[in-house]
């Protein structure tokens, strides 16, 4: 992979990550307690089973390594690591 391709990966990740943050309120209402897969600022899969999400991402022709998958808590849920 060239440096430019990796820089593009960073840019796309940043864009998708910002997208989820901006939509956090909307997503917590629509997709609470589910995983959401995002690619190019589009929701491409939603569900409660992580492995099924990855499977669906592949079936839709995307490479999971280029997709951002995040758990969406409900509005009052806070996750401590």
């Amino acid at each position, binding site marked *: 992979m060239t440096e430019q391709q990796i820089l593009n990966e960073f840019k796309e990740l940043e864009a998708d990550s910002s997208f989820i943050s901006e939509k956090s309120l909307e997503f917590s209402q629509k997709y609470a307690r589910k995983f959401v897969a995002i690619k190019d600022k589009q929701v491409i899969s939603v569900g409660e*089973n992580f492995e099924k999400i990855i499977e669906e991402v592949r079936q839709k022709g995307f*490479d999971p390594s280029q997709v951002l998958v995040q758990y969406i808590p409900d509005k009052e849920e806070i996750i401590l690591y």
Partner: protein
Amino acid sequence: MRFNLEIRNIQNSKRIILPLFSRQARSFGRIEAIIDTGSPRTILSAGDALRLNIPFTNFESSTPLAGLGKGKTPVLLINKKSQSQQAVGYSLSLQLETTRKDHSKLWGIKPNWSNKFTFSLRDSEEKTNNFTMPLLVADVPRIKKEGQDKLNNAARIPTLIGMDFLELNSFDLFVSLNKNSAYLEKSE
């Protein structure tokens, strides 16, 4: 050399994010990691490990970690074996269905901290920089044996950048939530 971090609202909380790119052989891909100074170790999450198709059978078990979600989370040590060891491992897996623990016994392998995970970071001048370090990864096959719910719970937790990341790579961490600014600076 400076690496900008992002302060962003993730999962209803403000988090400090480090975007990175895995250059691990056959597991290239994007990772959105969270800076967690409360964690002594850097841990590649179950979700990211599945997304990146990490070859779990290549790694050996390490001490399960307490505090990641409910109960203890089994983890593997990213530990590059020689080609011949990998070939033997796959062969044994197929023929004898031995476990990773058995492989470890057969080979007498102990955690080797000189073998490392390779990744890229983007610096403030828009250049990529490569790093290597030992890394723990959630042991997805073992988590799965405890049930799908356990795996889904583990997948909620993102990849965590622990104190070892800062120490081993000589990074200083600067954070100002008031100015919405955070970055890593590489000590020369």
